[in-house]
């Protein structure tokens, strides 16, 4: 036997990776209405109340919905990516153990984590894309600039992956019995310090809050989306946003995959 160095072809690992991804897509397909409700309701209501209702009642300035909309694209992508990954992962590791069958599939453990990120990013991207027609429906029109679309697409992808990365870190850190506490401690602040409801440069009137929001990587996704869709609104320069997002994704992925290994292998 030449057992020690038997090569496991990349093909086997890719096959396992794709099969696991197919399983996740299959489940999403079966639970499509639930998925849609889960990802769309929150941004829909934010858009409806802040963009439509408050505007119609005259409590927000004209044009507020234009700067809110790009922020909500970023919020939807980040939150969906995070929720898709973190909640199930906490339960799978801590309670249902469903993940074990995938951990025993013939692929590197890191690839199981990578699949989680790819799947969560895909869902986040779909959810963010769905916000475009919803925005048109709720607001009547959305700020749109064809020349900004390439940057918008890049930002939507980065925001989705960022959300998945946050989810992976959170999902591997939290034990099921602390899931409620941690999610309210992490989720809500993240949601409201990510500059989705206000542009970052305008915060110079609240310097301490400007510092806080600068620490939330979601801020750069929101700002990047504004750069793409409403460049007239003061925003962080796109190259800064791109760099910070890319860096955050790298850091979160490394930390998340490490955490994943720690949970997967004793």
């Amino acid at each position: 036997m030449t057992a020690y160095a038997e090569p496991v072809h990349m093909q086997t690992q890719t096959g396992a990776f794709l099969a696991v991804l197919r399983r996740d897509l299959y489940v999403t397909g079966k639970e499509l209405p639930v998925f849609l409700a889960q990802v769309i309701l929150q941004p829909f209501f934010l858009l409806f109340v802040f963009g439509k209702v408050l505007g119609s009642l005259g409590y927000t300035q004209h044009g507020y919905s234009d700067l809110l909309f790009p922020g909500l694209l970023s919020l939807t992508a980040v939150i969906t990516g995070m929720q898709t990954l973190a909640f199930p992962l906490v339960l799978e590791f801590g309670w249902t153990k469903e993940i074990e069958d995938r951990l025993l599939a013939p692929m590197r453990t890191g690839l199981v984590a990578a699949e989680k990120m790819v799947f969560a990013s895909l869902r986040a991207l779909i959810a963010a894309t769905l916000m475009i027609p919803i925005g048109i429906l709720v607001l009547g029109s959305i700020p749109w600039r064809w020349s900004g679309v390439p940057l918008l697409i890049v930002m939507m992808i980065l925001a989705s992956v960022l959300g998945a990365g946050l989810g992976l870190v959170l999902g591997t850190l939290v034990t099921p019995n602390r899931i409620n506490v941690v999610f309210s401690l992490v989720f809500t602040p993240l949601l409201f310090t990510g500059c989705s409801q206000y542009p970052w440069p305008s915060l110079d009137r609240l310097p301490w809050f400007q510092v806080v929001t600068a620490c939330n990587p979601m801020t750069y996704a929101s700002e990047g989306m504004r750069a793409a869709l409403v460049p007239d609104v003061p925003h962080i320069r796109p190259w800064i946003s791109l760099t910070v997002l890319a860096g955050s994704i790298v850091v979160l992925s490394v930390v998340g995959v490490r955490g994943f290994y720690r949970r997967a292998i004793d």
Partner: protein
Amino acid sequence: MSDSAVTVRELVKRYPKAPVNAVDGISFAVAPGEVFGLLGPNGAGKTTTVGVLTTRVRPTAGVAEVDGLDVLRNPVAARRRLAVVPQRSNLDRSISIRRNLLFHAAYHGVPAAERDRRATELLEQFGLLERADSKPDFISGGQSQRIMIARALMHEPAVLFLDEPSTGLDPAARLFVWDRLRELKERGVTLVLTTHDMHEAAALTERVAIIDHGKLLAIDTPQALIRSLPGKATLELATQIPPDRSPEDVLAAARTLTGVDAVEPVQAQPGGDGNGAGEARVRLYVSGDAALLVGPAATRLAQDGMTITDVALGSPSLEDVFIHLTGRALR
């Protein structure tokens, strides 16, 4: 490198911050097609040992191989050769029972047509066809055990690891699982099961490793382990004695038999046949096989005009072996 299905050499595992090794220098080998049991109380190190072999626990030292593959150096390849049936259900609750099987096979690269064929075959064999298209919610422990074994077989592993395969199952479910495991053995699948149930070990395994505190205390066939116990088998004889003989004579005669370690009278059953002829019951403590002593005992007693009317063999169990080795009961 070896021809064994499973090889463990000098395996050590110490968990971070643990004061002692969970596995403390265990070595054994399992032959292809063998049914091998790891017997020990909870916390003995069985599950950790299996965890290393199934690529889920990183050992502190030592070697672990499955089907000739070093699981540490080559975990991905090893996963194609092994399958695990855990004690508690880890079935995918979002998809049907059939899809649990199909996706498992897909993870392992089984072609689609082959997946369908195997799934149908295994669902039938495990009595799951009727429920195949419902999700594995609200199912009994026995059923989830069956589904997990069927799922494990979808990629035709060389070695199947089962953790406490029948703990918590009702007797019928337990027998069903045992029957299926025996069928697997006939097909040449190597089975490694951990258990703290000596009945299960005795009923299923060809060889047993007894583990406690992370150390391997004994390894042999259950019969050999039991036989190795000094004076633990018993032979109980009911003897008809003529009026000129007393129960003491029976004891004296029994003592002269070779292989008998000790003899003691057993309380006579009340309400004997009452014909005046006495009856005596004696218990012989025997090293080795008690059944082999029945003939010599009958011959020896007949010399004194006594007849054996009833025989009862008491054989020690793996539980006794365990108590003998560790000084305490399994549970």
